[in-house]
């Protein structure tokens, strides 16, 4: 027992000596500075001792520091008592519930710093998610449902009342080229992309209520997953088609005075009689600009969504979805009307986009000025060609 104690005391004194030796050798020695880290070693030595340094001698020690500095007798007493600071949690800070309420009411986010590279994760709480949920589940569902179903009802009613619009003079049998192969191919590329994009998009908003109960969760997921891939990929040919469409047809789609006249007369579709029109009448021009401007915005917001968080933050992503969702349901409604009038709504109209050849009587009633222009062009001598019988 006593031997163990003796051993412990020896070890203690050795350790203390070691610590002191470290301290003394730690003094700068005037020469080249040594690279050393005395602090952790001293700390470690002290830690093992437990109660600070053990004095090696009882003789009075010289104080450290500047030798001629007068010893401080006592700490200066403050004139006025210093109140203890409030604890950290109380320093003028609103608590969590209060901050969340404020953020919700002000439309802000509670965000800070995060040590992982994902900057999006620095948002602690984003109350705007609730508003986006409201938009997605209520506003978009209602606007979309009313727009799409409403348009279908209007078109069905129109068909019942007016029936199929036929050329008043009947078909002449003579045709002329309205759209060349490039124009038709591009139209159908945009159209087929739009149909798939619209159906897969509608599925994301309405499929849960309409399709899911019918085909079951597994089949619905298979359909929706395929729809998502199709939606992501077809965005690119759709956008390309919009650009080509713009370049091909913008010349003939600049609004002019004839369009006002056309609208006043109800376009010959709703009203009676056939107002004059060049290659595109005001209704077609409207469809063109809905497709170009609406489709452009839908494509732009869609690219924001398909490359998430590359150009914007969570609020931008939510807004991109709002723009994308609202514009598309309105565009789908407009395109439904376009499909109706181009197919069952009007005889002779579909030919323009299938063979490209339209009937002369159809052209005379709907695009009288364009027909004249085409005739003038046809009668004009081909440059370089000799008239028959000449020379």
């Amino acid at each position, binding site marked *: 027992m006593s031997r163990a104690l003796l051993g412990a005391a020896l070890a203690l004194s050795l350790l203390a000596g070691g610590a002191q030796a470290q301290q003394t050798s730690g003094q700068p020695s005037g020469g080249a500075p040594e690279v050393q880290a005395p602090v952790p070693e001293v700390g470690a030595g002290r830690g093992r001792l437990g109660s600070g340094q053990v004095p090696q001698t009882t003789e009075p020690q010289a104080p450290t520091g500047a030798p001629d500095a007068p010893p401080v007798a006592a700490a200066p007493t403050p004139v006025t008592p210093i109140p203890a600071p*409030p*604890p*950290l*949690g*109380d*320093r*003028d*800070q609103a*608590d*969590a*519930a*209060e901050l*969340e309420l404020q953020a*919700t009411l002000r439309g802000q986010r*509670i*965000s*800070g*710093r*995060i*040590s*992982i590279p*994902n900057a*999006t*994760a*620095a*948002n*602690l*709480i*984003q*109350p705007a*998610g*609730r508003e*986006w*949920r409201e938009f*997605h*589940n209520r506003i978009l569902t209602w606007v979309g449902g009313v727009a799409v179903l409403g348009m279908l009802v209007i078109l069905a009613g129109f068909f019942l009342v007016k029936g199929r619009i036929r050329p008043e003079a009947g078909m002449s049998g003579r045709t002329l080229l309205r759209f060349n192969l490039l124009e038709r191919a591009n139209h159908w590329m945009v159209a087929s992309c739009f149909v798939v994009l619209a159906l897969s998009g509608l*599925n*994301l*908003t309405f*499929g*849960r209520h309409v399709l*899911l109960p019918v085909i079951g*969760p*597994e089949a*619905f*997921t298979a359909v*929706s997953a395929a729809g*998502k891939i199709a939606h*992501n*990929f077809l965005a690119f040919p759709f956008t390309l088609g919009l650009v080509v469409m713009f370049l091909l047809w913008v010349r003939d789609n600049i609004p002019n005075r004839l369009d006002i006249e056309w609208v006043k007369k109800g376009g010959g579709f709703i009203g009676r009689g056939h107002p004059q029109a060049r290659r595109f009448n005001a209704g077609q021009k409207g469809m063109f600009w809905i497709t170009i401007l609406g489709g452009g915005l839908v494509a732009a917001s869609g690219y924001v*969504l*398909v*490359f*998430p*968080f*590359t150009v914007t933050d*969570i609020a931008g*992503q*939510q807004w991109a*979805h709002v723009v994308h969702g609202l514009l598309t349901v309105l565009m789908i409604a407009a395109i439904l009307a376009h499909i109706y009038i181009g197919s069952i709504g009007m005889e002779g109209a579909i030919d323009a986009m299938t063979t490209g050849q339209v009937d002369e009587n159809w052209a005379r009633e709907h695009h009288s000025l364009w027909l004249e222009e085409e005739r003038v062009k046809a009668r004009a001598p081909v440059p370089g060609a000799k008239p028959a019988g000449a020379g």
Partner: protein
Amino acid sequence: MARMKFLCDSDRCIECNACVTACKNEHDVPWGINRRRVVTLNDGKPGERSISMACMHCTDAPCAAVCPVSCFYTTADAIVLHDKDLCIGCGYCFYACPFGAPQYPRVGNFGGRGKMDKCTYCAGGPQQDNSPAEYLQYGANRIAEGKLPLCAEMCSTKALLAGDGEIIASIYKERVQRRGYGSGAWGWRTAYRETVPA
């Protein structure tokens, strides 16, 4: 049955990220996915505080409300889980979630999101409890073994509490009473529409 909740005592959290590491390790979470993260508010300023955040398993969960394929479900313990076999990775739950909990592996083209991954409250998924299939998709199922989430179990300062909402709220209230201050239960107003008086 208990109503499971998380509560992070931000006066205790020291941003050691052990909860994040424990979670990643326990569930073999892939790179780039963080089911749990620690956010520091007012970093370097007076009043700095860190909060460990993951899925809060909301009452009336927004993710479930907006999911186009209805892949979410709530367990008897009020834990919000989802079925990865049904998820299509559309990303809508991330837009709706107030806490940024849903995570997506980057797969395929563009910013293509894979099937969503999030905190399961260590309760796995719809697969057979503690089966290899469940572990592969959702990670460990500690709840089925009668254990609480590992992040809270690992927390060195016991800042992160997990368990029945009433019990952890009473533990927190007792702490606040004893030390005289507290900043409240982060996310509770948003997730559970209730507050813990601090």
